[in-house]
Every structure is written in C-alpha cells, then in structure tokens.
C-alpha cells in the first residue's frame, strides 16, 4: 500500500531533521534558544498531517514525492534557521501555506483532468502574472521579478511557471497530431504546417520579451526550456528543441549585445576575479564558500557564512545562494547528496509521466519535471560558476513564500496524476 511506504519513507527524513537541528543548535546555541528546537517537531507534525490527509484523499499517489519534498524543505529550513532564525520562522509559515495549498488542490482537483477545459484561463493568468510583475514589479539586482503586495513580496513568475505548464500540457495534447505531421521541408528538415508553428514562435517571442522586459536570463531560459521539452515530448521530434534552441541562442546573443544586465552577467561569469569587490563579489564569495567546504564541509553551523554583525557575507544567501551555504557546511559529500535527492525527485516525476496513460497527464508531469530539473540546474550551475549566474530559487530549499507555495501546488498535481494512474492499475 502506497501510504504505508510513504510513512516508512518519512522515517529517515525525521531522523535527519532531528540530527540536523540538534547540530545547528549545538554549534550556535549562544545565538539561539532551545525553544527553537520545536521547529523540528512542528515540521514533522505538519507532514504527518498531510500524510494522513493523503491516506483519505489520494491513497494511491506516489509514496516518494512527499517525503522527498519534506527532506528538501527540511534541509532548506535548517540552513535558513542557521543563517537567521527569524527567517526560518517565516519560512515555516510559508511551508504551512504551501501544504495548505497542496491539501486544497488535492481536495478540489481530485479529477484534475477537468483542468483541460480551463487551460486558456491558466495560460492567460500565467502571462498576466508576468505582465503584472514587469509593469508593477520592483527592480531587484536589475531584474523585475518581484511584486510588492502590502508587507509581502510575491514572485509571480513562480506561479506563472506552473500555470503555463498546465496550459502547454493541454494545448500541446490537443495539437500534437498536427505538430507532428510533416508538410514541407526546410533545408531538408521536415517541418509541420507553418500555421501550427504559431505557438512556437509566440512562445519564443514571449520568452524573449521576458528577457528584455524582466532583464532576467534565468526566468526566460526556464520558460523556454519547459516549452521546448514539452513540445519535444508531445511530438517526439528533435526538430523543435533544435530550432528552438537556435532561436533562443540567437535571442541570447542579441540580448548580450543590447542589454547591459545580460552583458554584465556573462562578463562576470567569464571573469569574476577582476571585479571581485563589486560586480563579481557575490559569485566570488560563493566560490570561496564552496571551496571552503572541501569533501566533508565545515559542519553545520561552523561555516563562515555571516559577518560579525550577523549579516550574510554572500548577498541573497538564504534565497538564491542557499546551495553555497550547504556546500560549505556539508561539503562535497552533503551537497552531492542533495543533488542526488533532486535527481531522485526528477526520476519519480518523469516516472509518473511515463506511467500515466493519457497525453495531458504525461505532458503535465513531464513539463513540471522538466521545469523542476531546469530550475535546479540554472541556479546550482550559476552559484558554482558552471553557467552564467541568474537569480532564481532552488525549489523547496530556498527561502521564499512564492517558491515554496508554487512548488507544493505543483507537487499536488503530481500526486493527483500518480494517484489516478495507480488507482486505475489496481482496478
């Protein structure tokens, strides 16, 4: 039975949680009080509650997803708690909201395939969210990703990502026959009818507009990457990702030449050292932190992450650069374990896509999986200077309400898809 397996899967999570929090507390007890250890209990309690809910609402859903998400969030909260206990309290609140959304989605969208009737609404809302961010958003580090609503800062892109994935799943599912039919050849490459290329061109245009208006290479790369992956899954043709990739590369080169921020990011990526006190500071400090970690890390709470006054040495340490902190304190061993955790999560998501028996479900799961994988790659590759750095959250781990809530929303969809597949298999 899936839920019993899930319960067993939770055991290592609970053990790691307790050990982790206890060791952070032990090394930094002078700055923290023992009552903060209740985070661990609260955390375990919340996930047990969701587990019990799933027993009733989605008993056949995948037994790995929730424990994996719990483990990643636990590592995140532990690290955030170590950086700033106040932020950990806020993150715990966001985690509750995220789990609340998960429960609502699972309860309301039991028959999630009804979403197929509302894909255009999803698409429009998804695009509108981005437009709102661009028009009303605050510029932080040159990128317009944030929307200030009262006391909260919302990152509409995180929700938009899920909504647009839903739209694309429905749209591509209905159009995939047409998109896979060859009607003409371009330089010997089989091409579908021009009119069906519309969405591809639109999506490219949208990603490029995002790049120019949001000033953010990472977000546009993520959206376009999700789109290409889903088109590829829908049509089975490499033509789409190849042509799309060329289009995007062309757009990126253009952006490099006309947008200062993009130019900056690439220059810093190539050589952060020559401007290590100013533009390259964040990346250089991230590399120093990662390098300090070595094989086994400095140990939780023992890294050199904060100045004497408690300010983080690396700006955005708790959000975009949380992995640098993890790599320093847990070393290559711990950080690799985390990457493997992400990979296992991706594996489960792609497996859900493969196991499901309808196009919409396959596309939705594969799209969410591709987005998850790509987002992880973009930020991790960025902070370790594998690719140009771009500010984006590490799913489930980074501090950030929008990110946590949107990711648990996506997780709910994946649970529903697997619940349906497994239920049908049993009957």
């Amino acid at each position, binding site marked *: 039975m899936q839920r019993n397996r899930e319960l067993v899967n939770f055991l290592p999570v609970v053990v790691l949680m307790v050990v982790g929090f206890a060791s952070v507390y032990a090394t930094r007890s002078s700055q923290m009080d023992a009552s903060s250890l209740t985070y661990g209990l609260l955390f375990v309690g919340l996930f047990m509650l969701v587990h019990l809910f799933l027993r009733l609402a989605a008993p056949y859903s995948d037994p790995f997803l929730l424990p994996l998400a719990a483990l990643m969030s636990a590592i995140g909260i532990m690290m955030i708690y170590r950086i700033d206990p106040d932020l950990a309290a806020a993150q715990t609140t966001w985690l509750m909201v995220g789990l609340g959304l998960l429960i609502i989605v699972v309860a309301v969208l039991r028959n999630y395939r009804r979403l197929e009737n509302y894909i255009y609404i999803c698409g429009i809302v998804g695009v509108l969210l981005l437009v709102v961010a661009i028009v009303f958003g605050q510029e932080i580090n040159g990128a317009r990703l944030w929307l200030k609503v009262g006391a909260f800062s919302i990152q509409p892109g995180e929700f938009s990502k899920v909504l647009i994935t839903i739209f694309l799943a429905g749209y591509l599912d209905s159009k995939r026959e047409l998109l896979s039919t060859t009607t003409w050849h371009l330089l010997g490459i089989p091409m579908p009818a021009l009119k069906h290329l519309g969405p591809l061109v639109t999506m490219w245009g949208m990603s490029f507009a995002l790049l120019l208006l949001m000033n953010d290479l990472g977000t546009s790369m993520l959206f376009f990457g999700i789109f290409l992956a889903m088109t*590829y899954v829908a049509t089975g043709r490499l033509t789409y990702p190849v042509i799309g990739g060329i289009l995007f590369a062309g757009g990126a080169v253009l952006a490099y030449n006309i947008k200062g921020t993009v130019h900056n990011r690439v220059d810093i990526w190539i050589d952060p050292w020559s401007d290590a006190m100013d533009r390259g500071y964040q990346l250089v400090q991230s590399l*120093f932190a990662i*390098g*300090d970690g070595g*094989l086994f890390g400095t140990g939780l709470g023992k890294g050199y992450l904060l100045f004497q006054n408690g300010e983080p040495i690396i700006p955005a340490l708790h959000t975009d650069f949380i992995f640098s902190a993890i790599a320093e304190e847990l070393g290559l061993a711990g950080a690799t374990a985390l*990457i493997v955790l992400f990979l296992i999560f991706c594996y489960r998501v792609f497996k859900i896509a493969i196991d499901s028996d309808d196009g919409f479900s396959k596309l939705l799961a594969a799209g969410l999986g591709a987005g998850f994988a790509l987002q992880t790659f973009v930020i991790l590759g960025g902070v370790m200077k594998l690719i140009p750095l771009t500010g984006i959250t590490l799913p489930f781990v980074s501090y950030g309400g929008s990110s946590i809530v949107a990711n648990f929303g996506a997780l709910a969809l994946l649970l529903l898809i697997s619940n349906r597949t497994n239920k049908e298999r049993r009957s």
Partner: protein
Amino acid sequence: MNPPIRKLFYVTVLLFASLIAMLGYRQIIQAQDLAENPQNTRKVYAQMRIERGLILANDRIELARNHKENDLYYRLYPTGDMMPHLVGYSNPTYGQVGLEHSQNSWLTGTADEVELVNLVDTLTGKQKRGADLKLTIDPGVQRIALGELQKIGKRGAVVVIEVKTGAVVAMASNPTYDPNELDSNWLALNADPNAPLFNRATQGLYTPGSTFKILTTAAALESGTFTPQSRFRDDRGTVDIYGFTVHNYRTEPFGEHNLSEAFSESINTTFAQVGDQLGQNRMTDTMEDFGFYEKPPFDLPADEVAASGRYENGELLKPDDPMDRTQVASMAFGQEQLLVTPLQMALVAESIANGGKMMKPYSVDSVSDYNGTIVHQASPEVWKTPLQPDTASDIKDMMIKVVNEGTGSKTKTGKVQIAAKTGTAEVTGSGPNAWFMGFAPAENPRYAIAVVVEDSDAGGGIAGPVMRETLLAALGL
C-alpha cells in the same frame, strides 16, 4: 510519448552529473587555489577562531596574548609599543606582519609538528590552541635600547646579538607604534612621514660610512698584501684616484701612519688607496663573505628583511655590476651607492667578536605546544665564515683602539672594555646618519651591537651613549 520523456530524464541525469563534476572540481581540485586567493579573507577569520599561541620574551613576560569576543580571538600586545616591529601584529582588517605573520603556522597550531596533537585533542573534544613562542629578546635590554633612542628623540634602530649563538637580544626601531591601537590610528600611522610602521632594524637601508672600513680592512688583511702595520702617508689631507679627489673628515694631514691607525682615526684617503689596490673583485668577494647581497636568514617574513649591498634606484645591484676605479675607491670608505641594514652591521660586528664566524641570527628560541612540550628548539648555526681567527683578532684590536684612542671615545666606560667602529654618512637636507657598532666585553665578547641614528649631530656623537648604555644593560652592568 514515453521515449522522449526517457530522453528528457537522461538529459537531466547529464545536467546533474555536470553539476556534481563541477562541484567536485571546486571543492577538491580548486579548493587550495580558492583558499589562497588574495581576495579571500575567510582564512583570517577562520584563524581567528583558533586560540593563537602566546608570544613570550626570554623571561616569559607576555608580548602577545588573546582576548575572546563572540567566539573570535583578538590579539592583545601587553607591552604596547615596546617591540611591534619584531613581534608584528595579527589583525583581521590589516592582516599580519612580523613574527605574527612568519610564525603563523606555529601560532595557529597548523604546523605539521603540532597538527597531530591538535587532531587528537579535537577528537577528544578539547579546544584547538596554537603553540607558544618563546623569544630570545631580553625585555630589559629592549627597553633600554628603545629608551635611549627615544631619549635623544631621533629616528633610528638598535640591534643586539648574542655573540656565541646569533640570538637577537634586542631589536628596536624608533619611532615605534602601539599595535593595540591600529584600528584608530591606521591612517595616521601610514601617513606619518617618520614611518613608524617601518622596521628600521631589518629594512632600513643606510649608507654605512666608515663602518664599512671593517670590510675593507678584512679584505686587505685576508689578501695577504696588508698587515695592521702596513705604512701609509698623508701629507695633503686629500688623495686623487683617477681624477677623483678623496677628502678626510679632518682637514689637516695625518702624516705618517699604519693601517691600524688609519682604522681608528678613520682616514678616508688611506682606505681609498687600499680599496683601489684591492680592486672590485676582492672587495665584493669579501662583502659576499659577510652576507652582503643576500637577505640574512632571519625569522621575520622575507619582505621585512632587506639585503645589504650596492643599490641603484632602489634596486639591489649584482655583486659583479661593473665599477670604475673611483667607485671602488670610494666604496672602500663606505660611500658609493652602498646601503646596509642595522641587522647586517650587527652581524658584521658579531662575526669579528666570534673569531670570524658569523652566526645565523634568530629571535625564536623555542616553540612549545600548550601542554608545555617543546616542539622546536633553536640551535645556534654558523651562517658565514668571513674571516680567519687571526684577522678577526687583528680587527678586534683595531676596534678596541677606536674606543680608547680614536673616533669611538664617546662609548668609553670604566665598567667594561668596549670595541667599536663609528661611521657618519652625510644626508642632504638633514643632519648626518650616525653609526656605532661593536661588541663587549672586548676580551671575551658576549654581545654585539649596531646602532644607527638618523639626523644626528655633526660628529655623530649622540649615537655613542645609545650603544654604551644598551651594551651595559645587556651585560647587566
């Protein structure tokens, strides 16, 4: 649709594998480079988490200790401005200099010899702590040396070395500074034209003037061509070497005299002739025998010790850099682009006192881990052997004469026989730099000394008492 999904997963595996590979590169292969990057201040902070070892004088008074604040250890220097140039400082903002810098691996306990002990203690839960340094410095002598310089109110330096061992007993540089007050005084200290942060004893380069005649005399005696009794005449008070006229300090002629008298009366004209006769090769060979043209192997960081020799535009020339005859002649009495450090001249004095053997100078006597176990003990070593014992003895006799009958009478005292050589070097725009170097007791030398005083009185006499009082303090008289 399943094959594309599988391929998507393979791409994901590939991407994540590249992340892990890059992470491994950064954390293992590149880690050392990243840690040593000069823009990386993490190391200084990491070290501030370690309780540094103490720095103690030879009587075990504390020269450097720690105080703890928010898990970090900060350095305190209880003796203040007594000897910051040797001890140095370890400061998170301004870095490390002096022994704090060069002996960092002992002080932080990262030297191989103490690493194992520390590992065991780490495993058993004891706090990591660095090893203590015990210096050869005698604070009593150090205080007198610095105090005498401060008393005459001049910039200058004093170096005192134990003759038999090469142990540095005092090393003073004036003006000095308080390493506890760096944070509030940093800009002023750097802007001060008197350069208080500068260690004049090991980095200060001064024209040696007549003190260099010791080397010329050594070259002359070792050549076999001259003896202390070799005869010279001075009828005019000047001598011409290839059209270059050499003057004596005193205008009236010295008349007939021997080499020994030329030494004690510091007769430039005679030394110019001796140098001319010896030639460049013999002169520079002797300089190299005395350790010129290389940095003395001292405990301070290499960039805090200067080599002595001929300089041009602030650069040390090669020993074989060609000189014409007038240059060799004027070098023989201590001019001609020659620049020397007080440490070097103290070593020259030490080698004469020690029968021709120049000991390797050192200031760290022993290192002990915090259990009190000595993990390193300095042992005296011969660095150079510039002289035969007979030659050393001849020069010693001349230096005794300098004090008893010659230019060094300012250092004469009834308490002990001192041997000395003086020197003055004219400086445009201020008073001359005055040198006094020598050792005591002359018959059985225990301490060698070099004193330099900038902007002194015309004859350089005010440096004499600095040497005398410091030597008496060292001898406990």
